[in-house]
């Protein structure tokens, strides 16, 4: 039922004591080991050794995605590289990527935290768990993998893609737990239907879904179509990866692993705390990370905290499933994409005009992105081969930079609507 009951069910007072101790040593760590924070603290004339209470966290500076980019690749590491045993990178692009590292202890803690999330979702050592998250630099695959092994489950590290093979293995290996993005779960359900396989004949019983926003309606659909109990979990590579928060079987909000992460929910404009239970931006401070500690990392994810006690007995505060973003980041097929990335790629391709539109749709539970871009009129009077060559170039560049396949459509000059003021270049037609 619990993975680390002494922590998950500790008293609020003991938790706050532990958080304070850990925050104080984290501040010492970053203040002495990370030049970025040392400089920020000294600019702010901040006595980081004089912290008396958890509320003092509001005096600390924020860390943003841009800070991580500016420190590419190892600038924010708090330990020398020889102590780092793993490096992950955000699903990013050249120049935009962010790099995070883990020491041996970080990996151990990460494994335990993911094991907690899996355990809360109902996974046990007796389960056969199919991990259909991408492996590689993305934290999802390896994060869940290590946690599942720590828990003692039988791990199938199948990685993402090749749905028919996923289903084959699910049948043959008698998979009982599935981990992937919620949209991919529905995609699997559709393929099952097309192949004429009755999900009731599978051994599946639980599913953990994350890495993209989803809804209660989607949960119901997944539960119905796959005959499982679906839970939500949350994490981000900047603070660790999966294992930051996860739902218990009450399926009513995600328990935040508060002994390792101190969370705040702030008004994204004023950066002041919202009223308890109100929606705001999630800001996370790591309390135990050795290699890559983060102070007040602005996740840009919108959520609200649920302070009522949970019947499952865990003391950790729950957060509502992610309600949206404070920036224009899109999550397409589980990959983070910023419109500005697409824009800068287009600008560097000869023959295109600086007007574009990104249309994201969901068809058969699969995300599909189409980039519409204006090209010079002359191109349309030219041979078709030139148009095709241009489409191929754009596709190739977008694919290699973003890591996802994107459809490209050329349109004539001045056919896309022009904006006055703030433009709406993204049309997200997905209903989740």
């Amino acid at each position, binding site marked *: 039922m619990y993975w680390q009951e002494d922590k998950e069910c500790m008293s609020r007072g003991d938790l706050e004591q532990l958080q304070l101790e850990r925050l*104080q*040593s984290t501040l*010492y*760590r970053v203040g002495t080991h990370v030049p970025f924070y040392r400089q920020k603290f000294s600019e702010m004339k901040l006595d980081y050794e*004089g912290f*008396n209470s958890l509320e003092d966290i509001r005096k600390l500076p924020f860390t943003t995605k841009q800070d991580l980019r500016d420190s590419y690749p190892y600038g924010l590491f708090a330990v020398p590289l020889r102590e780092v045993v793993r490096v992950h990178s955000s699903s990013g692009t050249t120049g935009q990527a962010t790099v995070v590292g883990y020491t*041996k*202890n970080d990996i151990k*803690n990460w494994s335990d935290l993911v094991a907690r999330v899996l355990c809360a979702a109902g996974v046990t050592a007796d389960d056969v768990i199919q991990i259909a998250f991408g492996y590689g630099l993305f934290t999802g695959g390896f994060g869940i993998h290590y946690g599942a092994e720590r828990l003692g489950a039988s791990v199938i590290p199948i990685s993402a893609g090749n749905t028919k093979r996923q289903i084959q293995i699910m049948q043959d290996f008698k998979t009982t737990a599935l981990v992937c993005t919620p949209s991919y779960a529905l995609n699997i359900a559709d393929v099952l239907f097309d192949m004429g396989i009755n999900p009731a004949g599978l051994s599946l019983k639980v599913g953990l879904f994350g890495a993209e926003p989803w809804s209660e309606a989607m949960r119901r659909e997944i539960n119905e179509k796959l005959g499982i109990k679906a839970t939500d979990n949350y994490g981000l590579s900047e603070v660790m990866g999966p294992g930051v928060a996860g739902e218990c079987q009450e399926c009513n909000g995600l328990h935040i692993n508060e002994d390792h992460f101190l969370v705040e929910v702030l008004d994204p404009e004023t950066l002041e705390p919202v009223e308890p239970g109100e929606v705001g931006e999630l800001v996370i401070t790591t309390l135990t990370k050795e290699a890559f500690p983060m102070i007040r990392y602005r996740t840009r994810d919108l959520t609200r905290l649920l302070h009522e006690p949970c019947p499952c007995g865990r003391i950790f505060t729950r957060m509502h499933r992610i309600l949206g973003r404070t920036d224009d980041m899109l999550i397409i097929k589980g990959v983070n994409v910023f419109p500005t990335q697409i824009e800068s790629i287009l600008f560097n391709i000869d023959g295109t005009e600086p007007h574009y539109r990104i249309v994201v749709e969901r068809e058969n539970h699969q995300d599909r992105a189409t980039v519409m871009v204006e090209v010079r009129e002359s191109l349309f009077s030219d041979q078709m081969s030139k148009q095709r060559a241009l489409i191929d170039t754009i596709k190739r560049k977008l694919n290699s930079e973003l890591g996802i396949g994107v459809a490209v459509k050329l349109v004539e000059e001045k056919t896309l609507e022009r904006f006055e003021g703030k433009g709406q270049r993204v049309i997200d037609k997905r209903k989740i």
Partner: protein
Amino acid sequence: MLKIRNLESGYGKIKVLKHVSMHVDPGEIVTIIGANGAGKTTLLSTIAGLVKAASGEAEFKGTNILKSKAAAIPALGCVMVPEGRQVFATMTVEENLLLGGHVLQKQGKQVLVELLEYQYELFPILRDRRNQLAGTLSGGEQQMLAMGRALMSKPSLVMMDEPSTGLAPLIVKEIFQIIVRLRQEGNTVLLVEQNAKAALGIADRGYVLETGKIILQGPAEDLLANQDVQRAYLGREKTEEK
């Protein structure tokens, strides 16, 4: 059991401890490691009420002990085994032990007899030497006597200051085995040690104290694996350059 927040203390104008926060849960061995002069003994002395805290909070079983007099703290269940044993040399072993049990005197002789028996079982050598003067004991035996004396008050928390000081490695091993046994029997131990490797080897959790500040904390195995701890306290710096 013991919760300390932002404790500051020192001697006169010299501030030794700076914003120390730590806790000990029941049934744990918690160790505080650090170099000479880091403030380890000052921390224990402040908890024991021997040094007055300048600011901060210290709660023992819900009681604010910063307001208690040093003499009242053992009766709350918090005792200290001082560094260098400090047994009463001109008294016998048994007299030393009985002194440790003085807070339980009101509970009658039978209680003390049982406790004596318990100490003799834990430290058989003390039974053999029960009528010998404490000053004639070897260093290891004196350390055992100091521990037995502290345990005579049936404390909920035993604080030990450098039990390994000046003892031969074999004796240190024996003392540490006894500390592990104390935990098995449900005791709670706060162990201050310079011998980081031995202390972390038996502890559940640890704190690293450096110039009066806690710079690291965590499960003992994590601290053992931490490269900063290895470099500074375990003497395990590997030179990879040829």
